Every structure is written in structure tokens, then in C-alpha cells.
């Protein structure tokens, strides 16, 4: 039966992560990276994967992973979201790993599980789970040619998984014929890049329907589990704002004693309670291979992305002028949250998927009207 709670192992994992992130990923350090050349934090990634083995959680033990599952992965994402940690966990340990699981690529899975290598699925971050963007062409070799824009978590990747022609291909991200150009991104803690392939040597790891299924499962996992990251983002925004309005005094009293602010924060808390239930459902479905997974993922992104945005916007607003400064971390969360409403397709796209999955058909087109 569906379990929407956290298990004892999951809570223990959360405690370890929170302690590590508090020491090694304080927001001041993340903020300072934005003015440097390397937004991703390789030292933090090495600690997360080396000490806690987070990259191996969804990989079966026989392939070098921890064999834990996607419920635990979701807990990791909650904590990474709470810290807006600049590491490629979503792109590599969730999306690319899910694609490789679907393709049975055990050697590559083993490499990703260690965390010493990372991979990215080379599709725009805005790609919805039911889209199949094959913008890249395959020449004999096979060698790839074409451009993919706005890819998340590809900048630090060693390996690119590229939907091209009729298949899914593995490409050495540092090899010939691959040029990655960083994009100045709305969310600078998860920066995108544009990728140009020009005769990049490739190895086909799945073809036809199998490739299409692998890409679909990877994007579905991303959409389903991004919801947990959004829960973490919203939780940080709520906690931080509550702390602020309890301490900040105006008119001779804490501003948190004014009903106008209390009701707004109560609404954020209610939305967050719901987002947590929805995100847990998506993670549980994904972990169990439940037939409801596609619906759960669409529900997750139709609901949770907006909750994170609402929490982040409330955080900025209730911090007043302070919340509008670069020196306060609220904007890191706002940017992560807003970018999340577009990642894996906007809410409208997910509602359209739900119309199909929950049998709520659109009105029929009336002949002769329109065009």
C-alpha cells in the first residue's frame, strides 16, 4: 500500500545530509560561487557521494550502488533543495541514472554510482515527460550533429546521453565534436548550457521504442522527484520567513503578530503540507514501479512547483527590503523555485497530461469555427 511517511532509514539519511550540508554548503558559500567561474561545487559533490554515497542510492547493489530506491533519493532532493546546493544530483543521479537503468547499461551505472563520474540527458530542461525531442541527427559512425539548448547539469558531466535519430546515444562530454557553452541562467545554482554536436563519436545504447521508453522514464523520474526538491525549497523559505517575522519588530511588536502576515504564512504551511503528501506519493509510486507513476509525476509538477514559488515569493515579500537584496539568500530560492515551474514542462503541460491520464477530455473542436 502507498506509504506517504518517512521511514527510520530515510530520517537517518536526512540527518546525515543536513549535517553535512550545514557544514560544507552554507548559503554564503553558494552565493559567493555565483561571482566565480565554477558554479557547481565539485568538493561538495565529492563529499556527498564519497561519504554518504548519494549517487549510488537508486543503483542496484550488483551494479555498484546502494540498492536503496527512489524514496531515499527523494529525501536527498528535499535536503539539497533546502540548501539550494549546487551539485548535479538531479541530472546525474536521477535523470541520467534512470535512463541507464532502463537501458541496462550496468557499466555506466557503476561509474555514476561512485559519483566520480556524472552524466546528463542532453535535452532542454523544459522538456516534458511526454515529449520526445530528437533534435540531433546521426551520421554513420555513428557520429552526432545538431544543437541542444538549455540543458541542466551538463556542465560538470563526463557523459552525455543524447536522444538522436532513432536512438539514445552515449557521448563523451569531453571528447571531440562536443562544445558546451554555459548559459547565463535564471537559476544560477543549477546553470544550463547549450550543446553543439559536430561529428561527435557516439555509442547507441538503445534504439526505437526502447530508447523512447528510456527517455520517457528518465523525464518522468525527473518530474516526479523534482517535487521533493521543491518541498525542500518551500520548507526553507517557510522556516526562514517564520524566523524573521518573529524577530523583526515594527510598530512596537513583532511583525509576525499581525494577522495579515500570519494568515499568509499559514497558507504557505497548508500548501507545503499538501506538496509533501503529493511529492511522497510520486516518490513512492516511482520506487514501487506503480502503474500510477505517470499520473503521480504529472500531479507532482502540476502542484508542487507552484507551491515552492509561492513560498519563495512570500519569503521575499515578508523580508521586506532585506529580501530584495543580493546579500540575503532568498533570491537563490526564488530563482530555483521559478526555474522549477518550467523544468520538465510547465504546469499547463502537466494538466494536459492529467486530462488524458484521468480521463477528463477537452471539449471537441467545433467544425468550421476558428481557422
Amino acid at each position, binding site marked *: 500500500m502507498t506509504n506517504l511517511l518517512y521511514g527510520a532509514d530515510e530520517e537517518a539519511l536526512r540527518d546525515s545530509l543536513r549535517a553535512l550540508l550545514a557544514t560544507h554548503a552554507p548559503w554564503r558559500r553558494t552565493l559567493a560561487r555565483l561571482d566565480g567561474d565554477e558554479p557547481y561545487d565539485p568538493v561538495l559533490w565529492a563529499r556527498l557521494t564519497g561519504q554518504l554515497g548519494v549517487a549510488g542510492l537508486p543503483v542496484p547493489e550488483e551494479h555498484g550502488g546502494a540498492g536503496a530506491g527512489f524514496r531515499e533519493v527523494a529525501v536527498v532532493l528535499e535536503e539539497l533543495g533546502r540548501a539550494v546546493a549546487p551539485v548535479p544530483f538531479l541530472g546525474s543521479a536521477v535523470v541520467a541514472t534512470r535512463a541507464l537503468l532502463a537501458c541496462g547499461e550496468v557499466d555506466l551505472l557503476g561509474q555514476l554510482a561512485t559519483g566520480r563520474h556524472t552524466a546528463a540527458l542532453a535535452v532542454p530542461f523544459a522538456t516534458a515527460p511526454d515529449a520526445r525531442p530528437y533534435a540531433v541527427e546521426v551520421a554513420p559512425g555513428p557520429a552526432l550533429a545538431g544543437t541542444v539548448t538549455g540543458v541542466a547539469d551538463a556542465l560538470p558531466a563526463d557523459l552525455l546521453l543524447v536522444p538522436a535519430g532513432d536512438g539514445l546515444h552515449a557521448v563523451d562530454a569531453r571528447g571531440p565534436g562536443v562544445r558546451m557553452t554555459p548559459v547565463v541562467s535564471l537559476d544560477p545554482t543549477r546553470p544550463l548550457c547549450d550543446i553543439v554536436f559536430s561529428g561527435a563519436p557516439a555509442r547507441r545504447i538503445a534504439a526505437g521504442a526502447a530508447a523512447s521508453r528510456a527517455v520517457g522514464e528518465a523525464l518522468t523520474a525527473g518530474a516526479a522527484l523534482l517535487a521533493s526538491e521543491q518541498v525542500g525549497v518551500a520548507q526553507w523559505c517557510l522556516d526562514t520567513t517564520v524566523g524573521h517575522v518573529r524577530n523583526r519588530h515594527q510598530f512596537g511588536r513583532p511583525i509576525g503578530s499581525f494577522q495579515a502576515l*500570519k494568515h499568509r*504564512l499559514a497558507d504557505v504551511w497548508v500548501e507545503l*503540507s499538501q506538496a509533501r503528501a*503529493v511529492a511522497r506519493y510520486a516518490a513512492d509510486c516511482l520506487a514501487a514501479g506503480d502503474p500510477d507513476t505517470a499520473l503521480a509525476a504529472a500531479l507532482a509538477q502540476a502542484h508542487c512547483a507552484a507551491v515552492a514559488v509561492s513560498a519563495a515569493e512570500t519569503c521575499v515579500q515578508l523580508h521586506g527590503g532585506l529580501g530584495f537584496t543580493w546579500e540575503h539568500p532568498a533570491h537563490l530560492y526564488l530563482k530555483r523555485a521559478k526555474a522549477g515551474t518550467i523544468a520538465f514542462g510547465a504546469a499547463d503541460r502537466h494538466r494536459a497530461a492529467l486530462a488524458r491520464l484521468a*480521463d477528463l477530455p477537452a471539449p471537441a473542436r467545433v467544425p468550421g469555427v476558428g481557422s
Partner: protein
Amino acid sequence: MSDDTADRLRGLVTELLGRHDPAGGRTGFLRARFDAGLAWVHYPVGLGGLGAPERLQSVVEEALARAGAPDNRPRRNSIGLGMAAPTLLRHGTEAQRRRWLRPLWTGEEIWCQLFSEPDAGSDLAGLSTRAVRDGDDWVVDGQKVWTSMAHRARWALLLARTDPDAPKHRGITYFVCDMTAPGVQVRPLRQLTGEAEFNEVFLDGVRLPDALRLGAAGDGWRVARTTLMNERVAIGGRPLPREGGMIGLLTRTWRARPELRTAGLHEEVLRLWVRAEAARLTALRLRQQLAAGEPGPEGSAVKLSFADLAQQISALELELLGGEGLRHDDWTMRRPQEPDLLGRTATYRYLRARGNSIEGGTSEIMRNIIAERVLGLPAEPRADR
């Protein structure tokens, strides 16, 4: 360990069914079930329970349902089961629990709640019904309002002021009121739907023996908080399958009546479907927390969002129906046991849903409670403490 307990419970059900024919009289069977500790298994031995984990109640319910045993018709006595029982269990004396819990659970005695007054709604602690000590009795005078079940109830949970000089939260005492006592008068209170689910109750020199006091004199507010917390859970905590609530009426109409569909309504139907499913999963998660013995504060969230959703869904249903949405079924004064949300016209649902954000704590008060008790925000400065 819990498997052993579940097996033991199934064994006790089999024994009960062997001793008492489930096809015989309802009351006789229910009394025997109570005495076997199978009424509410998490209650103490001797009070209808076995001190077992609450989540194992479903084992008993399933085994008895399979045998076709009669249930205690919980909706007939929702205030008794949902609010009075936990309050009696927590604050009653041993004699009080033994006197009241058995006929309460079997449905032989219906309960109601005499809390709200015309001048004490959200500010319930401002109530002015008086109880004055007179020998071994208390004499009660006042008026209560919004009392469902009062016209059927044998007993009532009553809050009355016993010390007008004490600060307002400390001058209140909690009683169980005998609804058959002289001086208790019940009148129907007709609501905007035309029917009367509720009553006004007039208390005129009602004599209550001191044995009907629940908790210490002056400690009534603390006792009332047990009742009110359970009210919120009782109102918002029912488990539903997907599309099991009011959203199901909207989606059934949507599927069955393609001629009503427009692009704009489609968008709104999908948005509400998402919100309803999120609220359903939240309620399910709350139940799992309660069953695991880690009660969360999500009950207030569930109550708030249930009210909001019921209002939005019923409003959209009316608009979807267009001209049909202008036809109401009946304005005559009925005395329903509970609102018939699924059986009547969409107009009724729209109107009745207005009450959802008022009854059991207005949505504004719920937000205050969440802000202060869950988030720890400071209270507004008050003039009455």
C-alpha cells in the same frame, strides 16, 4: 508483534460471532461487541477496547463486515463518537466513563455539543451561559446556538461560566447536560439552504447534579480543547478514494455531458482536480501519521483546504450546468441528520458549502491556530486577557 495482535483480534471476532448471531438484534450485538473490547480496540479494557494500536481497528471492522454484522451507524452519532468519547476518555472519572461510553458507542444514546452562543462564536471563551452552584446541583441559565443533533440527543457537552470574576478562560466549567432535564428547550434553526440541521437550545434554570461535571470547576477551557481538536480531525479526516468527494460529481458531469465543455471550464476542472487529489493525499498522509502514532498538525490543514475546495468545486459545478444550475430542488424546511451533499442538486451543494468555512472553527480562526500553534508566531495583542 502486531501480526500476533491482529490474529488475536480476528480470534476474538470469531468468538463474538459464535456467541452472538450478527443477524439478531442490532443493539444486543453491539453491546456484546463493546463488552468483548472490539468497539474501539485502542480504548482501555473494560471501556470497549483492548489497549491495542488504533491502526488495528481496521482488522476488526473488515472481519465483522465480512460476516455481515451490523455497525453502530456512526453518522447518527458523529458528535458522540468523534468528540464526546475522546473527551470523556481523557477527562471523565471512572464512573463517568463506565456510565456513558457504552450506550454512546452502541448508538443507544445520542450526543450533541452546547458550545457556541449568539455572542460567543469564534471567541468561544467569551460565552455567557451561567452555572451557579446550589447545594449538590448546578443551576444553568443561558442560550446556545448551532447545535446539531440537539433534538435527538440524550446528553450534551456543555460549557458554562461558573466564575464571572475570573479571567475569561479560567472561569469556565465543563458539564455533561441531561437533555431531558426540565428547563431544556430545543428549537430548530433554519439555515440558508431552507432546512434545519441545527438548533437553538434555551437553558432556563436547568438543574445539573455535580456528578455531571467533567474536570475541575474552572478548568473547562482545557477540557474543551480536547473536544475542539477532535472536532477538526472528525470534520476533515475521512479517507476517500480518488474522486471520492465532491470533485467526483463535477468529473462525472464533465464526462457524461460533452455538450457542456468549454476550453475555459476544462482548465478550471483540471486545476480543481489537481487540488482535490493533493488534498486527498494530504488526508491520507494524516491518517497514516495517526495510525503510526505520530499525530501531525495537518488536521487543521485538511479542514481548511476541504472547506475551500468544497466551495470552489460546487461553484464551478453550477457554472458548468449553465441554465440547469438555476434550478433548485426544494426550499421546504427539512430536519436532515446530516447534509445530503451527494444526493441533492448542485445549487444545494453550492449553498451548503458556504458553511464549511464557518462551522467547526472559521477558516480565519484555523489560520490563526496554524500560525500560532504550528508555526509559533506570536498572538495578536488582546484586550480580554
